[in-house]
């Protein structure tokens, strides 16, 4: 099973990388860009894991390893 986990900064945390990308886009003439947030994406290929198990294991992995709950949040879904 393939799952995808998106990790991003909490809204309360400043995202300087996103800001830099935004500024770059504005300089390049993409004036309609109001905001950019940058995060990380993880695609995991899991072997012999049922959907139910995934619902338990993926959030566990995400909160324990992939995201730092002090600054980050995550969402995830099953790809295939």
């Amino acid at each position, binding site marked *: 099973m393939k799952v995808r986990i998106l990790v991003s900064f909490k809204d*309360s*945390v400043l995202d*300087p*990388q996103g800001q*830099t990308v935004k500024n770059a886009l504005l300089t390049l003439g993409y004036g309609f860009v109001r905001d950019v947030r940058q995060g990380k994406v993880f695609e995991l290929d899991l072997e012999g894991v049922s959907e139910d198990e995934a619902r338990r294991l993926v959030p566990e992995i995400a909160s324990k*390893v*992939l995201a*730092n709950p*002090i*600054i980050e949040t995550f969402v995830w879904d099953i790809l295939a």
Partner: protein
Amino acid sequence: MKFGVVVFPGSNCDADTLHALGDILGREAVYLWHKDHDLKGVDCVVLPGGFAHGDYLRSGAIARFSPLMREVGEHAARGGLVLGICNGFQVLLEMGLLPGAMLRNKNLKFLCRFVTVRVESEKTAFTRLARKGQVLRLPIAHFDGNYYAPPDVLDEVESNGRVVLRYCDDQGRLSEESNVNGSLRSIAGLVNAAGNVMGLMPHPERAVEDLLGGTDGRLILESLIGGRVP
């Protein structure tokens, strides 16, 4: 006083730290391998700078799962001394031994240079030889040193005098400019509530010889040599 310098895969200031503690300060200092379960009877564990596990994922994020970190956690819980330098600080944050997290430097660049930091508290095992308000000149070398913690955590840390070092100018004044990496409240180093675990971004081990541009790092390492402040 015996020091143990933990070697993670990707640590790269381990030898420098051992050199500073052993060859320069003349203390007993040994390496501790991250896969072992043996602290070799050391009094103070030093988590050195570098890029444990490449700093992939997040700085310090994977190192905290190393087998030896369980022993380090227990050592800290018993009141044993733990010093995290740079990457070691990041590991301590990820382990939760110190509060907060590190974000990318405000200019999104790796920063290597000498900075000045102000000693905020001399009542710690790590700064007992310093004066409050003393300005130290120490090198930094990091990408993720922009300290962050939620406001309530910051207030708690401040009110309990746990902030040990702040980035400042050479007169000891705080400013946006002197806060090189954008850390909240210019925090460069802090201790845990019990006062036996400290993390700092500057590298004291790089400032123990005049030949290399200064010896202010000795103040921190020599403070430690006295052991725990009662």
